[in-house]
């Protein structure tokens, strides 16, 4: 920044102890880029108790709204401090018009203050919001159920194309990542187990370990978590963005229920896709364990498969896969519901997307725990 572009001022004060008059001579460019150096000193000068004050503005080479505001503010502060006369002299006519404009608008220019919320009010608002949220979720589940029952009565109203599309994106396209992670999980379990089992010479039981852990517990859970992160979040973001762009309202006015078009196909598609993905994860998980067992414990593939038939009963497989549809409903409902909760800003879409993932993973794990208890009762 060159010297020419910076605002400056000089002060001449009267000789008495309490100066009766102050002369402020302003020079240079009083612009938004130039006034930074004079801001603090000028605020200090404006605190003097002079009775007469003259601001000589004849040498101001450039003035914009920020500079004009600073001049106006200085005059105002001096007047409030009790100065009898405050004059600005020598201002160029075009700068004077600007200053008048600023003065005219100054009365209405109050810096905006964000309302402060007390702690107690904050807790209250949060509680209230949570309650609203809960009833909203219940209403949403109810609405989904009604739409589902209605489409059972009129199967022709089911929208097959979106279902197929969601099967493709949420199911088929999730195969590689689900398979890879499940394979690695199988490897890890076999690896962890091998060390312990070797100590007892019970190498062969690695098959039981991998088979039961993967089929009963891990692959349904793992698949559900991957799908919640992949598709649940995508749906929340999609519906949230549509809500903000008034697309949901547009659907309603066209006479197409958003539930029917956006929510139901996702739920149905995921009910089909998630069990299939779980089976796929079962297979790749067991293969992972198999690879590790043959490397570390010298259990051949043939031996592993023979033992698997004994170790894992059909009911173990079914308990695992039967959880998947429930997880599917949770993920799809939570993802869509959070999408509909978005309002107003891009920020809120991001927030709801995060919430959808956190809530659906949480609920999936809770449901899984409930399943364990129920299966225990039923002695499966």
């Amino acid at each position, binding site marked *: 920044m060159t010297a020419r572009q910076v605002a400056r001022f000089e002060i001449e004060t009267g000789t008495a102890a309490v100066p009766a008059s102050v002369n402020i001579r302003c020079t240079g460019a009083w612009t938004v880029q130039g006034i930074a150096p004079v801001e603090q000193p000028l605020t200090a000068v404006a605190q003097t108790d002079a009775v007469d004050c003259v601001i000589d503005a004849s040498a101001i080479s*450039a003035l914009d709204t920020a500079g004009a505001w600073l001049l106006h503010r200085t005059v105002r502060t001096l007047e409030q401090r009790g100065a009898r006369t405050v004059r600005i002299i020598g201002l160029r006519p075009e700068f004077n018009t600007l200053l008048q404009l600023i003065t005219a608008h100054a009365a209405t220019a109050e810096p905006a203050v964000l309302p402060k919320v007390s702690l107690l009010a904050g807790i209250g608002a949060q509680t209230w919001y949570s309650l609203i949220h809960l009833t909203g979720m219940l209403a949403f589940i109810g609405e989904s159920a009604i739409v589902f029952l209605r489409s059972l009565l009129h199967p022709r109203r089911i929208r097959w194309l979106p279902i197929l599309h969601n099967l493709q994106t949420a199911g088929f396209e999730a195969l590689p990542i689900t398979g890879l992670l499940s394979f690695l999980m199988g490897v890890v379990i076999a690896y962890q187990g091998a060390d312990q089992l070797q100590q007892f010479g019970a190498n062969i039981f690695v098959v039981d370990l991998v088979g039961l852990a993967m089929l009963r517990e891990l692959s349904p859970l793992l698949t559900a978590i991957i799908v919640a992160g992949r598709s649940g979040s995508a749906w929340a973001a999609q519906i949230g963005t549509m809500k903000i762009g008034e697309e949901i309202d547009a659907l309603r006015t066209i006479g197409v229920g958003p539930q029917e078009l956006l929510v139901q196909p996702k739920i149905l598609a995921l009910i089909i896709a998630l069990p299939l993905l779980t089976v796929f994860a079962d297979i790749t998980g067991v293969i992972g364990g198999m690879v590790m067992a043959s490397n570390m414990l010298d259990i051949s593939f043939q031996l592993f498969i023979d033992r698997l038939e004994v170790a894992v009963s059909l009911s173990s497989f079914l308990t695992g896969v039967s959880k998947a549809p429930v997880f599917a409903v949770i993920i799809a409902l939570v993802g869509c519901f959070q999408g509909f909760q978005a309002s107003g800003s891009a920020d809120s879409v991001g927030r709801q997307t995060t919430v959808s993932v956190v809530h659906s993973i949480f609920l999936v794990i809770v449901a899984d725990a409930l399943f364990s208890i129920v299966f225990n009762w039923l002695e499966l």
Partner: protein
Amino acid sequence: MSTANRNQQQSGSVIDIRHLHTRYGKAVVHEDASLSVRPGEIFSLVGASGCGKSTLLRAVIMLLQPVSGSIKVFGQEVVGLSDEEALPLRRRYGVMFERGALFSSLTVAENVSMVLREHTQLSQALIDEVVALKIALTGLPADAGAKYPNELSGGMRKRASLARAIALDPELLFLDEPTAGLDPLSASGIDELVKSLRDVLGLTIMMVTHDLDLLWRTADRVAVLDKGQILGTGSMTELSKMDHPLVREYFYGPRGRAAREQAWKRK
């Protein structure tokens, strides 16, 4: 008003576009378009939807790279300019986007103050005051500053967007459809605002608009675009005498005639 601006007045034009060719994918938008904007004038681009008005604006504000041709802003070539080189230039102009483009996670006041915090060394207190002043200048009530963009009506959002565009006291202001989607009252408020900004702050304004009332009331010169070419440039009165069928249709269609009669009555 500033020294730089006065230097510009000596050299002729603030924006100088020569032989501009632009493309969106394979679609050709502009073919050999040339025009220049003089200092302190309100210059407007008009034309049917999809004729490339907004694209031209985007090329000038460096959001779109033209295929060939030259665009000079304040005498500096902007085609092929790196972000770093463009920064000093970007500080000298403000842009008001068609749909406001306010940052939705910030309040109106924060939207405006963000620009000042990024580019000046002023204290927070002074910034807050300047922000409140800009909000008042655009005709918004003082309490609008604490609101988020989604709490504002369309007209208020436009004004807030304008407040952000003039935050740094730019020498050049780009307005994309400043009155689109506004009620007539708000729209004529914008007319007045645009005029007073030019008159008092000495801005040069380049705008894209379909609003014939706004054109008659404010525009000094107007360029008519069609199929990527500039059919003619001149004041509204000059253009309304032009012989080109499209231009005639534009000005003598039912809406054009009404706006012109309004303008005559005012005179």
